[in-house]
Structures are given as C-alpha cells and as structure tokens.
C-alpha cells in the first residue's frame, strides 16, 4: 500500500497534488519517468508522470487533473489513505544535457511533467526560458516552482487574466524569433498544444522534445496499447518513451487513439458521479 502523506488541491480543485510514500521508486526515479497507479481492486491502471521526488523521505509527487472516473476516484483519497498499487519508475528518463539555451513550454497539467525536466536542464547549466500557460489565472499551477527552475518565465492565459493574453505558442514563437541560439525546446501539455508548438519549432528548426500520454495498460511494453507513430515507425510510449522527438510524431493518429474509449469512459464516470451525488461513495459517506 502506498500512503498519501500530503495532498493539495490546485486550480480550483480541478488538479490534485499528492505526495505518496514509495521509497523504492523515489530512490530510482529520474525526470521524465512515470508510474502506474491503481486505487483499488477494480481500478484501472493509470499512468502518471512524476512531478517531483524526495528520495530522502521516500516520497514521490503526483499531479493529475480530474478528467474521468479513475482520477475522480483518486481525488477522493485523503491524507492517510493509500493507493493499492504504484508501479515504477517506468519509461525512459529524459536525456538531460547542456545545449546552451533551452525553452520549456508547459500547458495545464503538463507543467507538472515539465517541472522536473526544466529543473534538470537548469542544473546541467543551460539558460532556461520557460513559457507556462492555462485557460485562466486560477487554473495555472506550479508558477513558483517553475520560477526557481528557470532563468526567465513567461505566463500566458487564454482569457488574459494573468500574463500574456493568448496561447503559449505566441510566446514560444516570440522567444525563438528573439533568441536564434536556442538549441532545444521541451513542450508538454495537451495534444493540440504540443502539436501547435511543434509546428512553430519546426519552422525554426529547433529540436523538440514532447512527452506523450497515450492510453496504456501494463506499462512494460507487453500490450502495445500505447503505440504511437514516430518518424514513420511504431513506438511504444511506455518503454520507448514517453518522450519523443516532437517533430516526428504523428499527432493526428495520437489524437484519434486518445478517443478510443470516450463513450465507455463517460458511462463509467456518470455512474461514479451518480453514486457520488447520492452519498454512496467513500468521499461522501
């Protein structure tokens, strides 16, 4: 059992941060790697990239957005409650190297995945520009952490309530235009955002890393559910990724495959919400 020792609601309760006791994983995990979680016996295996670790205390930090039944179930877990399984660290760690100047772009919960990579790149001696965005000021997460991990931070909100009024792609383009010596971009967020970012970085010929989040089952390369096409080749995000060369990713295919279970996910979530509303769930009773 993997106990939650700290819990925080972010972005008006739409995003949850958990620090979870998992000493073996904390000791091994590197930026870019993920774990698979299961809340209970009947639960799905949900992959989440670690947002941070504290090896000394044996803790890992998981930050997730509530998007369906499984994450809603996770949200009901309070400090002192446990996940049934936490499996990892899985996937390839980010290849951190000194390139000079880099730009890190994060949107929504993607910022949580971006943070340890940003910090790692800074520690390697890179000059780090960061662009982080959300729909609105209240929904922006990890601003402080990103400030400590970056040399310059630009903030964007879709509604203009904070920072630049517009998408992260605006600031990405502006920065690449201004600093032609930027050698690496790391873009992590929703698929449409990553796709749009890659369109820009491609124009500027900047190498771009993205972290993909296809649907997974085992996370060990056994089932092929998370297959993505990168550079015309089939890759498994769970073992070959989750990070890939963003300029080579077949985004349209990934977008389609993420829709695999939309209807069934709704059935499951609706059923959960109904029980939740009726006070039959753990969090209400």
């Amino acid at each position, binding site marked *: 059992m993997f106990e939650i020792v700290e819990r925080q609601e972010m972005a008006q309760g739409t995003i949850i941060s958990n620090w979870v006791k998992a000493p073996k994983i904390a000791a091994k995990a590197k930026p870019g790697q993920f774990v698979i979680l299961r809340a209970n016996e009947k639960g799905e295996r949900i992959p989440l990239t670690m947002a941070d670790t504290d090896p000394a205390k044996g803790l890992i930090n998981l930050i997730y957005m509530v998007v369906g039944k*499984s994450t809603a179930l996770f949200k009901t877990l309070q400090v002192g409650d446990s996940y049934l399984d936490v499996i990892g660290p899985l996937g390839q760690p980010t290849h951190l190297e000194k390139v000079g100047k880099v730009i890190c772009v994060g949107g929504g919960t993607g910022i949580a995945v971006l943070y340890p990579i940003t910090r790692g790149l800074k520690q390697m001696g890179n000059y780090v520009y960061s662009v982080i965005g959300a729909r609105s000021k209240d929904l922006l997460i990890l601003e402080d952490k990103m400030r400590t991990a970056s040399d310059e931070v630009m903030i964007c909100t879709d509604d203009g309530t904070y920072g630049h009024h517009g998408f992260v792609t605006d600031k990405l383009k502006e920065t690449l235009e201004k600093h032609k010596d930027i050698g690496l971009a790391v873009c992590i967020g929703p698929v449409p955002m990553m796709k749009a970012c890659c369109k820009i970085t491609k124009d500027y010929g900047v190498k771009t890393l993205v972290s993909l989040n296809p649907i997974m089952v085992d996370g060990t390369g056994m089932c092929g*559910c998370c297959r993505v096409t990168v550079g015309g080749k089939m890759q498994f995000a769970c073992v070959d990724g989750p990070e890939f060369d963003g300029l080579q990713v077949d985004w349209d295919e990934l977008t389609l495959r993420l829709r695999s279970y939309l209807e069934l996910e709704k059935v499951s979530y609706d059923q959960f919400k109904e029980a939740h509303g009726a006070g039959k769930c753990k969090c209400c009773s």
Partner: protein
Amino acid sequence: MTEEVKAPKKEKIPRQKMPEQPPDVRARNFQEVPYGLTPELAMKEAERCIQCKDPRCLQGCPVEIDIPGFIRLIKEGDFEGSIRLLWEKNALPAVCGRVCPQEVQCEGLCIIGKKDEPVAIGNLERFAADHQRMHGKDILPPKAEPTGKQVAVVGTGPAGLTVAGDLILKGHEVTMFEALHAPGGVLVYGIPEFRLPKEIVFSECNYLERLGVKIELSSVIGRSETVDELLARFDVVFLGVGAGLPVFLKVPGEHYIGVYSANEYLTRSNLMKAYDFPNYDTPIVRGKKVATFGGGNVAMDSARTALRLGAEKSYIIYRRSHAELPARTAEVHHAEEEGVEFLLLTNPLRFLGDDKTGMLTGVECLRQELGEPDASGRRRPVPIPGSEFMVEIDTAVISIGSGANPLLTKSTPGLSLNKWGYIVADPKTGKTMKPRVWAGGDIVTGSATVILAMGAGRLASNSMHDFLTFGW
C-alpha cells in the same frame, strides 16, 4: 455343439467424459467450460490405466510426474495420497490438468490409446488438484531443512512458479518478483477465465506462499530494480519473464480504434476484468464483428473471448489451411462448436477505418492457396492474384505470436541474447552466460506452452539446487 469356456473377460470401460457447459450457453458466459470429473467418474477412469511396468506416458511429461502412481491412488480412493504424489513433481497440477496439450504428451504415448482412447491423464490430474482444493485437508508437502540460501525468481508465470515450488521444498528461501499486480503471468493475463479460472491460479500461488515463497507484486525488474541489484541480495536468480512483446501485422491501418494485440485484448479482459465493465473500471471495445488474426491457442482464446463479450460474428483469419492450425485440436473444436467462423487461406492486406472517428470498419484480405512445402515442412501459402475481398469488422485482434520483451534483458549486462532477443541458456540446465543467473520458458525459447516452460523451470531448478548445494 460345444463352446469353449473362456475366462470371463473384464468389461472394457470407455473413456469417461467430463461434463461441460453446452456450446450455445457457454459461448455467452465466462464460466469454465468443463465442470470436472466427479469422484465416481474419476475412480472409474483411473481403472482404465493398466499400470504398465514400463510406462510410456512418463516419457511425455516434461516435469516427470509419476503418472501411473497418482492414477492408482485415485483408483483406490486415496485422493490425498494422489495430490501428495503430484506435488512431488508439480506445483501447479490444477493448471496443468487444464491447459497441457496432453494429446501430444502423456496421453499421446499412453498404450491404451493404441486401440482405444487413451487414459484421461489430464482430467485425472485436474480432478486430484480440484478435489484437494475444494474438499481436502489443509496439508502441505514436507520441506527440507533450511539451507539459508536466497533465491530470486523474476516472473511468476509457469516457469518461475515451478522453480519456486521446487526450490522452496529443497529448503532454500525464495522470493518472486512480478511486474503486474497479480501473480501468475500468462496464466492470469493471457489464458481466459473460461479455460482457466483465475481463482485456481491464485490458489496455486497461495499454495506456494503457504510453503514460504514470498511474492513481490508490481515489481518491474529492469526498472524498479536491476538483475545486478538482485544478485547483490540473492545467491541465485532465475529469469522467467516470458515473451511479452506484441507482434503486429505491419499492414496499414493498425492504429484504428478497435485494433488490438492479443496481449492487450486478453489482458484487458482477463487481468483487468473488462468483461465486467463498468463494475470494473477498465473498458474494452465490445465488437459486434470481430476478426482474430492467427491460428494458435491464443487466437482461439481471443475469438472465444470476443463471443463472450457479445460479438455476433467472431472470425479466425489464418493464412494457412485447417490442417496447419497450430492450436490444440480441442481448442479448435471448442471454438468451432461455439460458432467461431474460420476464414482460412486468407491474408490481411490492410485495415480500413473512419478517419473522422478513428473507428475500424473493415479489413481487406487476399485469398491464398497451398503451394510447395517451406522450411517448416508445411505447404507454403501462395497468394491468388486478384482475389482481394473485404470483411466488415469493428474489432481486430492480432494474435500472430509474440517476441522477446527487451525491458529486462536490455538492463542486464552480461546476458547473451540471440538474434531475436531471447536469452541464450543451456538447454539442459538453463544456465545463462551471466554467473549465478538462470533462465527458462518463453524468454529463452520464444512463445511455447505452459508445460514446456514448466519443464524448463524444472531443469533450471535442478541445476540451481546443485549450484547452491555443491557450488556447480
């Protein structure tokens, strides 16, 4: 007229049939197909064994069960004695009794089978194990004095479970590591409930735990810990991680929603219990028209699972003819009885789908005919030009075998791999090129059967025990 008086000839007992669910009923549920033998039927069947002095059945058993011995005890009604005898050589009798291909092993060599149907050795093994599980006393086989030696077993499939069962009885301490959240490997994620109820696998694992085997679940060796780290804590390590790498057809359109590897389809249904969605959280596409590509046991499992998930049509699409189907005859027969349709001598060319929704809509195939024999001795299928045709489907399950999963081998320096990525190990001992490391099962041989993996586990455990005892 006088008649010569002959000694009364013993009445010939026919092979006792195991009662089973009728095909039209079972094709829509996930309960086990055969019900098992009653004690009366089992004792009657056991009488058919003539207790050969030089039993040939033994030669067909990779784990060297004393077959006439355990059958004689059933005949005598000593069911406890019979399970004790089985346990001496086999930690998984309830599993083997169900999934071993007995017709090409023990039963294939049974002398009774020369003129009549062979003794139902598999059904009797299953009976002894089931009877013990359901009615037996809480007994365990005797264990040797503790040796203090530490054994790590990576993978809890049939090979690993055999090694663990053997070495714990020989007095060593055994810890198993399983990447998934349940023990059993392919017995749990791969073989469906209706062929091997998971309760039985867990009960066999629980038997090992009661003997003292520790099982660490959700431990992905190669990621959470490396083999070298295990070698620092354990005297010896056995690698039985299976061949868990899905193989795709490599035809266009495999990204459409509804195209699954057999590994994914079966893992969702079996391990994650997607057949019980939304009671369980993991979803699965419940196709109305499902095509499974391939002709092995896993393909039969997939096609039969599709029926149980509500498919109106469940096809097997296989590029050779009926005679070449690699699946067990019994599995093919079960699939046919349940209404699986076989599109033989058929090769898929591409999947078609709706590019707006991403949904699979069909597969284009090409008919083939049998030509000259190939390297495997089987007649090579040759495409018939211009014979393209379309099959309307909404789900595809690709079951054309699996490859070596590199997750563990890549992170283990010193192992020698062959060109397909399988671990090179001595076929007689399971010894790898890396000191103190043994390997067996599918990660050495490529996809094979449960019992062959168990046989490899047996050879390795003998060699490991020698090493732990004598240092060689």
